[in-house]
């Protein structure tokens, strides 16, 4: 099992969710985050003074998938989230050692 951690542009969330559903991933957890990277922040100007806003709003999608679904899932995310413009984000894959569904105490593959 792997944890896929994708950081994408906020308005792509629905597309990514749908794309994941299509490859059979039906569980995910979403966090509103702020990102800093090549895409530079912006300045907001109030009363003639500039304020630098370094961080941009991003959405982090975390989903745990079976080993053999990882590739498809990552591909699905990349496809759905891509705009081709800077700031599209990243996908990271981390190892998971175990998983458990709280309601049923099923573990690992069954827990997803």
């Amino acid at each position: 099992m792997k944890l896929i951690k994708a950081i994408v542009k906020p308005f792509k969330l629905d597309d990514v969710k749908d794309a994941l559903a299509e490859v059979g991933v039906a569980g995910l957890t979403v966090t509103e985050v702020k990102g800093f990277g090549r895409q530079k922040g912006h300045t907001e100007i109030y009363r003639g003074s500039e304020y630098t806003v370094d961080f941009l709003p991003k959405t982090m999608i975390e989903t745990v998938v079976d080993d053999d679904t990882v590739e498809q899932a990552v591909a699905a995310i990349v496809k759905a989230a891509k705009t081709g413009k800077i700031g599209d984000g990243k996908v990271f894959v981390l190892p998971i050692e175990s998983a458990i569904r709280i309601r049923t105490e099923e573990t690992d593959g069954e827990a997803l």
Partner: protein
Amino acid sequence: MIKKSLYLCAFLAATCLPEMLIAQDSTQAEVAAVALETAAEATTALDSGNTAWMLTATVLVLFMTLPGLALFYGGLVRSRNVLSVLMHCFAIACLASVLWIAILYTMAFATGTSGWLGGFEHIGLKGINIDSMAGDFPETIFIMFQMTFAIITPGLIVGAFVERMKFSAILLFTALWLVLVYAPVTYWVWGGGWLFENGVIDLAGGIVVHATAGISALLLAKMLGPRDGFPNKLHVPHHPAMVMIGASMLWVGWFGFNAGSQLAANGNAGMTMLVTHISAAVASLTWMCLEWRINGKPGLVGIVTGMVAGLATITPASGNVGPLGAVCLGFLAGVVCYFACGIVKNKLKIDDSLDVFAVHGVGGIMGTILVAVFGTAVFGGTGVDDMVQQLSIQVKAVGAVVLWSIIATFVIVMICKFTTGLRVTEEVENTGLDQSEHGETAYQFE
């Protein structure tokens, strides 16, 4: 704290003496504009319409501070300091109210023995009862109406010291400032004092409210020092919608402020309302266009700041100018205050955090001076016959009040420094005043 302020009063009284002697010449105001006969003298019958309007106007001006100004300012700070700003405005309002009935009202409006300070006959509202009249409406309402001005004026200064000043220092500063700056200046201009005698024009407080608050704010900000991160690493306003809500309340309340200052529901009040509104609208659009042009984007915080500038600027002039004058003042308010903001921050390098001086001070002073121009018949105004002479009176009045505000504010800040201390610690500033000074958290969205 009280002892100290009494001591200061004595000191200042002594300082004033020479000047007072000079001013002695000026005869007492024969009929104070704000006609305050004590009940005994009252002969005018009560006019229920004017009374109704003054009750309403009083409500409107209080609404300007609570919650208007508080929100206007609160939305501009970081989310960790918003409650502290609301607290400052609220506590100042309460404190000013109590001081007003205790001592400020009599200092500002009772007949004084010189042109420098009102008498003390109404200390603790002594001698005021249900039948006391101020012209054709009850004096109690006049007391309340004027109290709301004494509430908002130190409230304006809050914008200079947000996010870093100690709460105890704020209270002490406010109390002393009301006694030493606000009450005397009010007497000078509105209560029958020497500037009033000189024929200065200031319908609703370009001098009394905006110039005093603006100048004192600037000096206080300078003495207090800037916020951590000033000028390049400051944080954006945390809640522009809150700023706009507050600004809107200021706008509607300002009709009580200006048109209420006519002390009657009549044609003067109507014209005052009209020109007040025009100036606000024109200044807003002016500011918006400047931002659009200069920054590429017209912003909400910008347009409402323009509005406040327009209102502050028309305030002293709103009893004398016509629609044309209002358009001109609104336009100038937008342009001049816009650039003043940048100058204070970038040239003077003072962290007058929410632009109290650039918006209120500059606007109020500009309006006070320009009423001599736009109040002439040429611009459709009324009440200014000799522009040059009026101009000199206005400039003199502004000069004197600015000077006095500077001196007194300096002294008051020093007093605070050595009693309560001025600033919170760096750690408190980092954590935010809400948590550290008031033990509360602003937004708990779970």
